[in-house]
């Protein structure tokens, strides 16, 4: 006969649990007796009488929990003790009935989840404002995924948030990463010391993914929605986010992402940065680097550069080293371009970019305008280049399929691939098309089978014509879709796949700058 046992100091379970567990344990094969009691003098003496008092029990106190098992043999005693402890642990995880009830309002959601600190709102725009106000009045931070929130309401919300020092992410904020949690359409990234404030949804996804893929990590990824950088909204959410990251001890490097902010907003950002000691990288896509420097930030020309800069700062890589690496990869890119250009026929002249990600469509235009000239678009940098018909491409064309004109009555292109797939095949049959350029944004909330959805279309397009297909994938291997897996599928289907939009765009640029590849 063998007795085994442990003392659990400072572990408390309600007596119901203790009793049930002990009962179950004594039913285990070979176990003669099993008990869980407080280590009081009396209980010890009772244990002694029933031959279960181990020496280590003698100095147990009134507040310690004694688990004692008596069994036929060593083996049974060990397993008996183990399963007793397992049973105890499991009892901790018991979920409660109260969670089954779905509260009807934010107020009552509190009662079910006291200590809630974040509200995500994705109801129709005209109601979103009301709910957001409630959240703020309860001192809750809020992410408003909904778009079409009335402008006056939006301002009201952002002002209140600013007053109360609460995060107001959105309206029209597609993504955020708070305490490592992916909110909305977000990627599963490493945690780390790089904090991001972004007024551009896919921009945040692209940067956080690259950082994570390069071995860096994200402390917080705060989205604000694009409207925040407009004059009337004065960057209210952006500033609160920035101040938070400056104060946050977990954040060592701060990365800012946006289309060029309104000058007044930029000024206010500069004000806040005056007090800041942390290195700040800013990708205000298309903004004048001098301006960015003037507010004390390191300018980055692209999302990719912003991400890589941030990582090397967080890893203390020297600027020389950084620039050297950039040069090397750039040369590789040019080599690759040469080889690909050779495959093109003389009549193949044009780029056709079909985008799921608004920020990426914008970035590609910013990068390519200086390399290949005018690019027509439904979201052009220069209003005169607006496509007459978004459904028909002209010359170099970049379309953002996430724009309302495409999404009315249809899910977002990051979820529903069908519309773009059709367009891809049309472009493929156009003899004047040199490059079909595609982005694929993965992560929570987006299409779960981007590989299966797109790969077949790529090979079909390759057969239909001679256009090169360049694909860039935003995301990480830890995303539900697994980046690595789908990249391989696209390559096998005959696409050139680059993992960052800026590189991919420049690759396209180099090819078109030098069509013969000589």
């Amino acid at each position, binding site marked *: 006969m063998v007795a085994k046992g442990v003392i659990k100091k400072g572990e408390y379970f309600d007596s119901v649990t203790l009793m049930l567990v002990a009962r179950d344990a004594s039913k285990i094969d070979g176990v003669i007796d099993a*008990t869980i009691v407080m280590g009081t003098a009396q209980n010890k003496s009772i244990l002694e009488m029933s031959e279960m008092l181990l020496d280590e029990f003698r100095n147990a106190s009134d*507040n310690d929990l004694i688990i004692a098992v008596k069994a036929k043999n060593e083996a049974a005693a060990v397993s008996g003790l183990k399963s007793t402890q397992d049973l105890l642990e499991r009892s901790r995880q018991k979920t409660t009935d109260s969670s089954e009830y779905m509260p009807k309002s934010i107020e009552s959601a509190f009662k079910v989840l006291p200590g809630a600190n974040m509200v995500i709102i994705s109801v129709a725009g005209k109601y979103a404002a009301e709910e957001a106000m409630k959240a703020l009045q309860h001192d809750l931070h809020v992410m408003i995924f909904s778009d079409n929130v009335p402008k006056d309401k939006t301002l009201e919300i952002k002002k209140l948030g600013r007053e109360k020092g609460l995060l107001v992410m959105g309206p029209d904020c597609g993504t955020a990463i708070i305490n490592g949690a992916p909110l909305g359409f977000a990627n599963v990234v490493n945690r780390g010391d790089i904090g991001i404030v972004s007024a551009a949804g896919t921009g945040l996804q692209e940067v956080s993914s690259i950082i994570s893929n390069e071995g860096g990590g994200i402390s917080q990824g705060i989205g604000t929605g694009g409207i925040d950088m407009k004059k009337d909204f004065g960057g209210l959410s952006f500033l609160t986010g920035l101040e938070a990251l400056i104060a946050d001890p977990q954040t060592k490097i701060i990365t800012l992402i946006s289309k060029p902010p309104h000058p007044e907003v930029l000024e206010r950002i500069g004000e806040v940065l005056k007090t800041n000691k942390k290195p700040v990288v800013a990708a205000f896509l298309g903004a004048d680097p001098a301006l960015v420097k003037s507010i004390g930030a390191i300018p980055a020309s692209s999302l990719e550069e912003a991400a890589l800069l941030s990582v090397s700062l967080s890893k203390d890589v020297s600027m020389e080293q950084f620039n050297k690496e950039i040069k090397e990869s750039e040369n590789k890119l040019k080599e690759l371009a040469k080889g690909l250009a050779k495959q093109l026929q003389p009549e193949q002249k044009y780029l056709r970019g079909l985008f799921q990600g608004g920020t990426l469509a914008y970035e590609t235009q910013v990068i390519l305008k200086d390399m290949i000239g005018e690019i027509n678009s439904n979201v052009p940098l220069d209003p005169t280049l607006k496509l007459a018909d978004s459904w028909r491409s002209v010359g170099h064309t970049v379309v953002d399929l996430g724009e309302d004109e495409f999404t009315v009555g249809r899910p977002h292109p990051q979820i529903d691939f069908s519309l773009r797939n059709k367009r891809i095949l049309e472009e493929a049959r156009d003899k004047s098309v040199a490059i079909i350029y595609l982005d694929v944004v993965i992560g929570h909330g987006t299409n779960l089978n981007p590989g299966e959805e797109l790969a077949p279309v790529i090979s079909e397009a390759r057969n239909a014509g001679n256009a090169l297909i360049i694909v860039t994938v935003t995301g990480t291997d830890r995303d539900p879709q697994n980046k690595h897996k789908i990249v391989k599928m696209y390559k096998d289907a005959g696409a050139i796949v680059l993992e960052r939009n800026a590189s991919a765009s420049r690759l396209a640029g180099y090819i078109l700058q030098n069509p013969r590849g000589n």
Partner: protein
Amino acid sequence: MSELDTPSSRLGVSSFPEEGKNSVNIAAVSVGDDIDLHERRGVIHTAFRHVINCKVNGSLVSIVTPAIGSGPNNIVVDSADLTSLTGREGCICNLSVIDFSNARVFDSRPVLDERDSSEFLTNFHFLEQIVIDEASPLSCAFMLDERRAGFFSTPFETGVRDHLRHSYAGFLNGSIEEVGLLKGAGFGLTPQGDDLISGTLIAIYVYGLMKQLPTEGLRHEIYNRARTSNEISSSFLLYASLGRVYEKFKDLLDALAHDRTRIHDAASRFLGIGETSGADVSTGFIVSMKKFYKGGLPWLQKE
């Protein structure tokens, strides 16, 4: 016991922010009459789904769900489940995040006097029967009905049973020292011996009320002998010795004295406390009352 060695490391109340940041996120329904709300910072002692025990400047304060009910040192909050309050590392609890504006004060004194005596006695056998029928197997209810002794099967269980039987009998036969053998004995976070003593303490108080006898000294002495470093158990004993009762027991006493139709509900609810606690306190209360009405308070006669 100093706050430092309270065994609470993993049971912090994450949603209790630091002082000054009073983001109130939970409302109190009632506050016990022994709680001093001037001191609002404490240390978590233990935390369960329905109860969080805090040490607030030396004394134990329990934050509980309505399921547990009011008590002299309970704060009942409007939430079905406290689990989500107890997730994170760290062990400070800050009562100023609780909104007390709508809380009522719970009066923990039983509403009884000598005039209730007769009704009380006639109703007593109802309670005894309910305990015998409904108490959980390993409770002390075997002291009311020997047939229940059979529930104790394993050597340890029979050991517990016999120990409780003998030491409690000794105690009720007038040897107050036996409290030392009784306390800390048996199952549960508040060991069964302690619960029996609580039952007896309340019985002494009630008997004193009915017979208009001074019993304060006696109750105090028993408490001093019974207290251990188990703070939860000790605070139950303390209030019992002061004649302060928890809502569910107060209701039970009230039903016994004033409204027969409510006895069953009140008793069932009280028996629901812990696995055996409710039953053990009731048993102690019943056994003691019967003894006192037969032959007065045994300990007094000895002296």
